[in-house]
């Protein structure tokens, strides 16, 4: 007995959770596919099958192409910033020092506070008139009063702002994952490297970095999902503007599908997230599998 399994009881205990998930994840997912091939609209009770029409029309729309571009710009750009900054932060936070607990709490704030609220904080910091950043630039005589840039009002600056807010939010998450990775490396490895005469940079880049690769990829894969599928940052900071220049796939799906009542087009837009999600899921399974084998 004991280790022996009780398949019947196991199935009974598992079934409710699996059913719930199937009903509320798999169900809506299939419904999204169904909508994407139909002409569903809010308030319209009749549905017709329209084939690939929705996909054809979103591919022709300018805002969709901008949204695809932005989704990739924000995701790739913020992941680069996040990995660089969080790698540095993980190195400096690894060894205990006085006040590390407080520093850790402060550093984690962007990740643990609700993102909608953090984003409002940034909206105020980047305000068109009362931005504290503009005030500093004026005080440093880099800009004349009232001539500082509108951070969220000019397309390129708005894109940079969204990218940085995404990075700001994910740096703590990635740092904690990398810290977990560093503490898992046996202490004698960097010590042996020091004995052999390897300095700080050699130890970090030639010895620790290769060992950290699996855990770095976990951080990047989760970060990719979180950024690519997020609409909160864009919705609150810019609402997709100015002139749709910061629209991403999820926020465009919301604008078209919910606010514009075009369920079919909205579903087609959100389904275009799927290819990347599948790739990330595949890579994640590979990382997990490799960790099990070694």
């Amino acid at each position, binding site marked *: 007995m004991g280790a022996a399994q009780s398949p019947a009881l196991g199935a009974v205990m598992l079934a409710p959770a699996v059913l719930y*998930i199937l009903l509320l994840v798999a169900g809506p997912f299939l419904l999204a596919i169904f909508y994407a091939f139909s002409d569903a609209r809010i308030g319209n009770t009749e549905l017709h099958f329209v084939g690939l029409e929705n996909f054809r029309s979103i591919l022709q729309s300018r805002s969709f192409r901008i949204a695809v571009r932005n989704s990739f710009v924000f995701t790739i750009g913020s992941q680069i910033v996040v990995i660089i900054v969080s790698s540095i932060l993980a190195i400096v936070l690894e060894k205990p020092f006085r006040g590390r607990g407080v520093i850790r709490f402060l550093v984690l704030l962007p990740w643990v506070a609700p993102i909608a609220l953090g984003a409002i904080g*940034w909206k105020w910091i980047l305000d068109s008139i009362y931005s504290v950043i503009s005030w500093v630039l004026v005080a440093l005589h880099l800009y004349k009063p009232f001539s500082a840039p509108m951070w969220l009002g000019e397309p390129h600056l708005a894109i940079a702002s969204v990218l940085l807010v995404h990075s700001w939010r994910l740096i703590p998450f990635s740092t904690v994952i990398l810290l977990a990775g560093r503490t898992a490396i046996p202490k004698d490895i960097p010590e042996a490297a020091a004995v052999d005469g390897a300095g700080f940079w050699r130890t970090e880049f030639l010895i620790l970095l290769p060992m950290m690769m699996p855990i770095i990829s976990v951080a990047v894969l989760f970060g990719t999902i979180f950024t690519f599928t997020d609409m909160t940052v864009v919705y609150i900071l810019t609402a997709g503007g100015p002139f749709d220049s910061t629209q991403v796939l999820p926020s465009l799906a919301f604008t078209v599908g919910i606010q514009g009542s075009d369920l079919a087009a909205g579903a087609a837009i959100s389904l275009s997230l799927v290819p990347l999600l599948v790739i990330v899921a595949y890579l994640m399974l590979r990382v997990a599998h490799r960790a099990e084998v070694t």
Partner: protein
Amino acid sequence: MQTSLSAHALRKLAHVLVITLITVALAFPFYWMVVTSFKQNVDLYTMQNNPFIFNAKPTLDHLTFLFTQTRFVRWLGNTTFVGVVVVSITLVFALPAAYSLARLSGRWGERVGIGIFLTYLVPPTLLFIPLSRVIAYLGLQDSLWALILVYPSFTVPFSIWLLMGFFKAIPRELEDAAMVDGLTRFGAFVKMVIPISTSGILTVVIFTFTLVTQEFVYALTFLSSEANQMIGTGIPIFLVRGDVYYWGGLMAACLIASLPIALLYNLFLDRFIAGFTVGAVK
């Protein structure tokens, strides 16, 4: 000796500098919320004033405004209510499922476990459009019950994943002994495994609750009236009247709603991370 000492000091200085710089950059928005929350409007909206200091006396006006003139307290209540109910539902579904996957199922259990983990990668932004119709069909528009129905779809998978780890760490001998003493397998789960997994359960409770407070897309899609908002939607949408931003009140609201969540999450963070690293860290 002299040079190595100064090299050491230089290193230390670089260490402190890097930490300070990054910490300031990451925590600045929250510092800014504090400063803004207590400034008088004349001070906030006079461009000549140095924004980093109090040019006029600090004030509690924004807090008074927030607690008396807005639905902020109601939103805190809504969020707590949804949080508590979703936590209960999550435990009811996730505890037995996680135990089943950790103990009662062999190879296929591992497959199902991975499948459940993968559903965590299906984002709300992919499902909110069809779900909005399901919610409308059920007559749950603009009701907190819509969120209570939908939120477990993302809290249950991750909770199962976390709890599986906890259950696997319990020595099998404990359950075997309990069953020799006459308990059934399910009895051993209820009377033995659950009580000694308190810390794992507490982790799931906190994690689920913070996920509920952080969710935005579903709340934005399903809820419409001011009285029914969660903190994440009520503050950004309903504290803005027309085009007028009450920055003092807004920042105070963000601060008050964020800090307790941040403190709680911070306490349990290392355990959530163990769930995220999917075995890539031993």
